[in-house]
């Protein structure tokens, strides 16, 4: 099933997130990822949600979201056609022997080493879903100690549109 990135502008209001999350829960639509943060306008929050589903589900989700009183705007960014980024912090096990390999991988993925001990390396990586999954796959070979992802945030590409 296709993935969709929904960009939702809402009134910055306590309880908005629970209305939105509740809508998904109640209708059994699965959220792949959700991220929220204020926009340039302090009274407006942007929530980015990645959902999996066919056209019918997407249409239903969009209409139900638009129905919520606090929702100002819902845009389907199109999963493939938007700038989407996610940040991950990954703490991976490392020994003297493996340290250089891990650093090499982190270079390839443009990751930054943000913490280092004798036995552990913590990396910060920013990328789209594919890149994050890629580095996780490689690092899991060494043993991932702990990990956190922010969830996807996205904006439309402007340069390729008129």
């Amino acid at each position: 099933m296709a993935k969709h990135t929904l960009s939702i502008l809402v009134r910055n209001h306590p309880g908005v997130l629970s209305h939105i999350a509740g809508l998904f829960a109640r209708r059994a639509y699965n959220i792949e990822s959700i991220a929220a943060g204020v926009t340039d306008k302090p009274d407006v929050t942007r929530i980015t949600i990645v959902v999996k589903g066919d056209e019918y589900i997407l249409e239903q989700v969009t209409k139900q979201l638009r129905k919520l009183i606090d929702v100002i705007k819902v845009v389907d960014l199109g999963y493939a056609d938007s700038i989407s980024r996610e940040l991950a912090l990954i703490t991976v096990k490392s020994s003297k022997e493996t340290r250089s390999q891990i650093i090499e991988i982190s270079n390839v993925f443009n990751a930054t080493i943000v913490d280092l001990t004798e036995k552990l390396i913590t990396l910060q990586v920013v990328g789209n879903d594919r890149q994050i999954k890629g580095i996780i796959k490689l690092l899991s070979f060494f043993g991932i100690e702990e990990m956190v992802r922010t969830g996807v945030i996205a904006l439309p590409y402007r340069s390729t549109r008129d």
Partner: protein
Amino acid sequence: MKKKGAEIIVETLIDKGIDTVFGYPGGANIPIYDAIYGRSEIRHILTRHEQGAIHAADGYARATGKIGVVFATSGPGATNLVTGLANAYMDSVPLVAITGQVPTHMIGNDSFQEADIYGITVPITKYNYLVKDVNKLEEVINEALYIASTGRPGPVLIDIPKDIQESTAKMKKNITVRLPSYKPNIKGNPIQINAAVKAIDNAESPLLYAGGGVVASGACKELFKLAKKASIPVALTLMSMSAFPTEDKLCLGMAGMHGTKYANLAIRDCDLLIAVGARFDDRVTGNPNNFAKNASIIHIDIDPAEIGKIKKAFIPIVGDAKSVLSELADKVKVQKRRKWINKIMNFKKEFPLSYENSGKKIKPQKVIETLSELTKGDAIYVTDVGQHQMWSAQYLKFKHTRSFISSGGLGTMGFGFPAAIGAQIGNPKKTVVNITGDGSFQMTIQELATASNYKLPIKIILLNNGFLGMVRQWQQLFFDERYSFTDLGESPDFVKIAEGYGVKGMKIEKPSEVERAIKSALKYKGLILLDFRVEREENVTPMIPPGGSIETMME
């Protein structure tokens, strides 16, 4: 001058024209109760249970078209509103519930009588609030009333901590509600409307499928005009039973699971289905793939999310039923459609609603038929949930809009009697009849005290079959007659119960007594309960089994 939060609540309600409130006090809303004490502009109806209060507010709203308002305290008071909120949400009833909450600094501490009613009611309200700042209170009440009653109506809950009710703020008065994100679409898109006009003009066998939205928007006249002008038969839902006069030849009565055979045949055979304020509920459609299989669909609804939810619409029109129907009625051609109307008339002649009348036991259908003949449609009929509800929808003949009140979407047993209280409060001059079952009535029977105290002259028609009849019917038909826990056993003496509440009661056991009993009840000036001992194992027919279609109908 500064005012207390509780006074701001009451003042704002009065300013907005709210003159009737239903409710039940408690520790967390004493300030609100203190603020209405002695205020003659607001009539407060004290029920015996918060569920009774909210169903009464709901019945009041449905019968009058005004906003129903209900007060309850925190914790158990608030949670007792949950069923009523869900009920109003499913049937799109304009309602505002104002609950007390524990003081702000105690929220989240599992304090005495604390419940997160805001969180609990997110999925069953159109919108809800937890007010944490007394300066926002006036605005919130204004917004809540506006949201509840505009667009697709629905219940709104406002949870107000006790300290907010007690602290003070300046009242602004004349607040204009500004909700940038909420703009219900009233007028239909002109291009779509013209397309619909063309489709109607060109259709050979069009059919109107009207739902509760027609009643809610007050569009019954417009519906009538369109149907008559273009000769389009009308199939109704439980929610719209009183939207079209039953005796008109174009009226097909109720569609769906327990609908008339002719309504369902018309749906099967129509080439254009004009759905107005209806949401293709599964009790109407059965299997949606087989529903109106031969028709293209025009779907008119104020809620864009309803369009395409169950059935794809060939012409979707987002807008208010009254506005859209009025435009359609003006623009369509006058037509006779002799062939189609003849076919419909033959369906009506060939497959009428019927039941066997043995004459030994009282038939529930007969009671309703007699009630209908004696009231001639000049009453507000309020039902509970079960077989008696379906028989009411089948055998009552309606003349006036908002004269049939029933829990449709949620199917809430216990709704009927308190809703009848609300309907009678809103219409003191009209005859209000509550048709109920022995199961349903016992869910909110304590409200007899309320009705008795306020001297409401409601006529209670209890169809007493000793069973949870509708469930028993399903067990009989689909579970090999294994009547697991649907036999209510020895009936209580309803006449004595009524008398205990100061209400007149009558037990009727013989078919020959039915007419006289109803006549005398209608003549009687006060509250009266008629306990009809009816045929115990009567079934509602016809029936399309769940998920089925007209081909699988049982007669």
